[in-house]
């Protein structure tokens, strides 16, 4: 079987676009133009409840060391952000972003009356409202209202609630392997327009898929269909951004944060994977001049208990840090430092910033849309983007 490209070339269609350019073609071109200027959001979900206190470490607080006899990160290792908190040294790959003023930490992000169930709290964070689960996610509703914000989910699991809307159907791929044409497979492309809107729309989708595969080069062909590790998923996101996949929101996740036992090395390894992956994504985009358009947002469904448990791990907590990285992010610390002297009845520090306010800032100040119809009236956290 001849290759798809050879096939096209042979039939002389590769450059033959019909004589009269139909109107949808012009609209599609304009949309593509707009996309190139649009900002891009990459959401990284830390699944399982990330230990926020060992991510952004309150190294200046005695209560932290007292409650974490085996897990506390020692002050001489912490990458200090100020005299009270600093990053876990496993996140060293993100330190240059902090030093360039491109990393913002919003501390103690959560919501009133915290829910400590993974499923329910994740549904709250992804849905964008505390209380009973919503049928749609905050980014899904954003795409419902603004189709240009269509999301692409990269990961092995179900399409997450966060990107699901009523009308907007997010695309979801486990990895670049989902864009791999099998050796015998081919797209029987047609370049011209038939004048029938349905057929022309299908032809455009075929050409779109074909173009994306071509722009991705051999990467999709070489990708393994197996579950891909986090770095590979972020590499897929990078390639898709470079190839202009037409998504402005990417959603991916790093699993394994439910560290109830012997978490010291597990958690450090996860953070190292996170830091390396995110730094690598932004460095790769910088080479192509695309980093300025991209902001990464890192969140988890809850933090973990201040007091470590008897198994060298930590139990489900409440508020935690949200981290934003990228050249368009205004670096710095936001929100109150965790007050380890004031805990709720479960033993968790109180939340200081409502997660919806961070979302509102992302929607308004980064994606450029009105957050009110998506989240209700919320005061957007000021100063997160430059």
């Amino acid at each position, binding site marked *: 079987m001849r290759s798809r490209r050879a096939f096209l070339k042979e039939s002389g269609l590769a450059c033959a676009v019909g004589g009269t350019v139909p109107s949808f073609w012009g609209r599609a071109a304009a949309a593509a133009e707009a996309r190139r200027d649009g900002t891009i959001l990459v959401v990284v979900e830390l699944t399982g409840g990330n230990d926020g206190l060992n991510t952004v470490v309150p190294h200046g607080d005695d209560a932290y060391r007292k409650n974490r006899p085996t897990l506390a990160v020692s002050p001489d290792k912490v990458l200090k952000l100020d005299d009270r908190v600093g990053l876990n040294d496993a996140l060293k790959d993100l330190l240059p972003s902090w030093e360039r003023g491109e990393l913002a930490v919003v501390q103690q992000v959560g919501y009133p009356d915290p829910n400590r169930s993974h499923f329910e709290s994740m549904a709250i964070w992804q849905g964008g409202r505390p209380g009973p689960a919503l049928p749609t996610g905050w980014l899904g509703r954003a795409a419902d209202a603004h189709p240009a914000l269509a999301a692409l989910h990269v990961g092995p699991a179900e399409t997450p609630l966060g990107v699901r809307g009523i009308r907007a159907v997010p695309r979801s791929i486990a990895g670049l392997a989902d864009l791999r044409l099998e050796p015998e*497979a081919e797209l029987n492309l047609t370049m011209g327009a038939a004048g029938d809107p349905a057929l022309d729309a299908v032809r455009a989708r075929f050409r779109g898929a074909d173009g994306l595969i071509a722009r991705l080069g051999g990467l999709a062909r070489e990708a393994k269909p197996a579950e891909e590790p986090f770095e590979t998923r972020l590499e897929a996101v990078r390639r898709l951004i470079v190839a202009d996949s037409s998504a402005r929101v990417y959603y991916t996740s790093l699993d394994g944060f439910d560290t109830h036992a012997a978490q010291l090395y597990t958690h450090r390894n996860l953070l190292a994977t996170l830091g390396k992956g995110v730094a690598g994504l932004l460095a790769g985009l910088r080479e192509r001049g695309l980093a300025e358009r991209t902001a990464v947002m890192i969140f988890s469904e809850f933090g973990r208990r201040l007091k470590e448990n008897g198994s060298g791990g930590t139990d489900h907590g409440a508020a935690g840090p949200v981290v934003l990285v990228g050249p368009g992010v205004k670096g710095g610390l936001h929100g109150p430092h965790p007050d380890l002297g004031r805990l709720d009845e479960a033993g968790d520090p109180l939340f200081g910033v409502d997660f919806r306010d961070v979302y509102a800032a992302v929607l308004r100040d980064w994606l450029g849309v009105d957050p009110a119809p998506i989240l209700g009236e919320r005061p957007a956290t000021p100063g997160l983007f430059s």
Partner: protein
Amino acid sequence: MRKARSPFDDPRSAWEPYRPTPEEPWNVARVAHLHRRAGFAATWGQVERDVAEGPEPSIRRVLDGEARGPDGSESSEFESIVDTMEQSFRRRPSMERVSLLWVYRLVFSPHPLEEVMTLAWHSHYATSQAKVQSPEAMLDQNRTLRAHWRARMSVLHSAMLSDAAMLSWLDGIGSTKAAPNENLAREFLELFALGAGNYAEADVRETARAFTGWSRVDYSPLRAVQEAGDMDDGPKTILGESGAWRQEDVVRIAVRRPAAAEHIARRLYRTFVADVEEPSRELIAPLADLMRVEGDVDVAKGIETILRSRMFHSDACRGRCIKSPATLAVGAVRVCEAFRPPVNLSELENHLARMGQRLFHPPGVAGWRGGIGWLGDSTVVARANFAAWLTGPGAGLAAGHFRDLADRRGWTTPEARFEGFAALLLATPLDPEARARVIAADDPAGIVRRLLASPEGQLG
């Protein structure tokens, strides 16, 4: 582009019955269209039979089911195989087996319209195993939807509002008089019964009260019961009517609203007539009128009206749907008679998932969007990969299967093979250059592969 007299532009006569005329004869194109929309396409033998027998017996057979499955086996044999599979499932339940059972029905059912409608209701009352986590409950819901595929809407709504999988999916379980959960009530009004804009927020709150009292009495299999103690049977005002309404009263009140028939008429229109554009109110109104029967919504009447209509049998109706993955894939399996040995059904199910229609896992409460939404970058690739799989060695068919099939039909030249398969698979003529490429494939498997992976092949 459409002719001025297309039924799409003539709402008054659109739903009148089709009668063959010299301009609109009963022919292969019409029969193939009927089976592509109201089933999963037809074998060449079925098409030849229906062309010879005329519209009435053909449409009747589509509505009521065939005596034999597409593989020629008796319908009683099909039922008994399905029964055996279900019994075996009850002994050892798993989600894989629930999906496999349905894929088996899709491929072999002598009554494919029943499956088309079960799929449509699965998207209408979209419920996902991802949250329900009970294979038994998912199978039970699937059986219920099939049992009531052409029932009046009050029957379907009532069945779904008491369905364990649905009650788990939309948080009916655990909704009490003291703390009513609005999730099921909202989706009932918006997605199931009436559509957005046809109810108020107060109706959601009051409906939620009427839906209270459900609790889980067993996890495996999942079972739920409505207990009087937790149920709010106090006075309520719902959609303008006041009384001590319970769940069944809400259903009764909802189905007689004017919007109820229109909402379901639109669902049937998307399923059978067109899903690439929304129908105008003028076009839907007469269909909805016919479906309003005794204060209820008569689904059977709607389906029958559509499948007999001038609209459905008009040239303009062809190519106005995007084939769902099931329509594309199961249709190809049936057209290619991939029955003995059967195509690898669990791989077929995986292909449906990759093309974006993982059975029992709709993408959200609103089900699958359908239409052009089926075609994204990865799902277009998945369709081409499906075509390569079905016509390649991995599908589990006998060597030379496609050539033997074409030879049996007497399709011995590349052109004849193209014309034969295209008549069954395509709703619209293929672009001349794409056609040349298909014919150039020469061997029957290659011809089918390129037909399935062409833009025209995606139109229903």
